[in-house]
């Protein structure tokens, strides 16, 4: 009797847990749409400010994207944030070493938010490469060794970006029927 009851309980548990195991992610809902719409509007505002060469205004707009409360664990939210960090870094990038440091700090803050490979994660590494390349160009006339080191770091960042892109493309090709 005990064995039969155990079998029945296991069957019940399997049926109850099956949907939870199968479901990969939630269906798109209004909350996700609202947050994406808000992010989209802030990024368009940044474009408009940049059209008027208002970098400070654009920075403030992109900063607002990072304050949006995206649904927890939503890939769209994660990617919108990674894109915002990358854009913030590019906007901070200027002619001075301090600008480069600030831009690289944005990249460093964005990196831990990537929980999976995506084109956005690769883009963040590309931006890191651009910042380091700019540092190499700035240092080249006065500090050859420093410039060389910066370029080596830039090459490593670009290589990471390429690797991520390849992995994402391979995964997407597998999904395509």
């Amino acid at each position, binding site marked *: 009797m005990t064995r039969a009851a155990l079998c029945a309980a296991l069957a019940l548990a399997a*049926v109850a847990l099956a949907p939870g195991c199968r479901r990969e992610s939630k*269906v*798109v809902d209004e909350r996700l*749409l609202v947050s994406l719409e808000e992010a989209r509007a802030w990024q368009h505002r940044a474009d408009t400010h940049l059209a008027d060469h208002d970098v400070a205004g654009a920075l403030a707009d992109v900063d607002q994207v990072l304050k949006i409360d995206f649904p927890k664990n939503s890939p769209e939210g994660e990617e919108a944030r990674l894109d915002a960090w990358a854009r913030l870094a590019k906007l901070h990038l200027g002619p001075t070493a301090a600008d480069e440091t600030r831009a690289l700090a944005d990249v460093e803050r964005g990196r831990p938010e990537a929980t999976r490979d995506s084109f956005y994660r690769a883009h963040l590494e590309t931006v890191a490469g651009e910042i380091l390349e700019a540092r190499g160009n700035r240092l080249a006339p006065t500090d050859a060794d420093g410039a060389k080191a910066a370029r080596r770091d830039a090459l490593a960042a670009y290589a990471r970006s390429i690797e991520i892109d390849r992995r994402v493309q391979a995964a997407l090709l597998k999904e395509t029927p």
Partner: protein
Amino acid sequence: MADDDEAPPSVEEQEAAEALRRALDQAAASDEDARAAQLIAAAAGRAPRLGDVGARAIVRRAAEEARRRERERDAGDPPRARRWWVLGGAGIFAAAAIVLGLMFVQPEPPRRWRSRSAGMLVPGPFPKSQTAAERLDAVTTDRMVALRDARLYGARR
């Protein structure tokens, strides 16, 4: 002197008979003499009245035997009919669990309705001319369609 069956019992015979009667009433079952006497008396159609001790011993033995048989039955395999009841009950229970599960499990929604990575909507590496706003345009539009479809067709499923 020849034995005379018709002669009245002597005092010694009466005392022996009395001793035998007491033995029949009080003797334990292991007492061989008493048991032999019981058999003789029963053969002569004069079975003695069963004493309290003897009766209790019989009842105790019968009860112990019944308990022993019950223990043996519980320890061994259940009878076939009982086993079928158990198996049948378990099967019905499992089937009911599956039916209930199927009633409450919703079908898996299509992937295009679900929250997911942008993937090939904005294939990388991103071109220099493409802005973050343009990428969000593509993703937001796609998710709007997904939400509309999920609301429209999902409700009918």
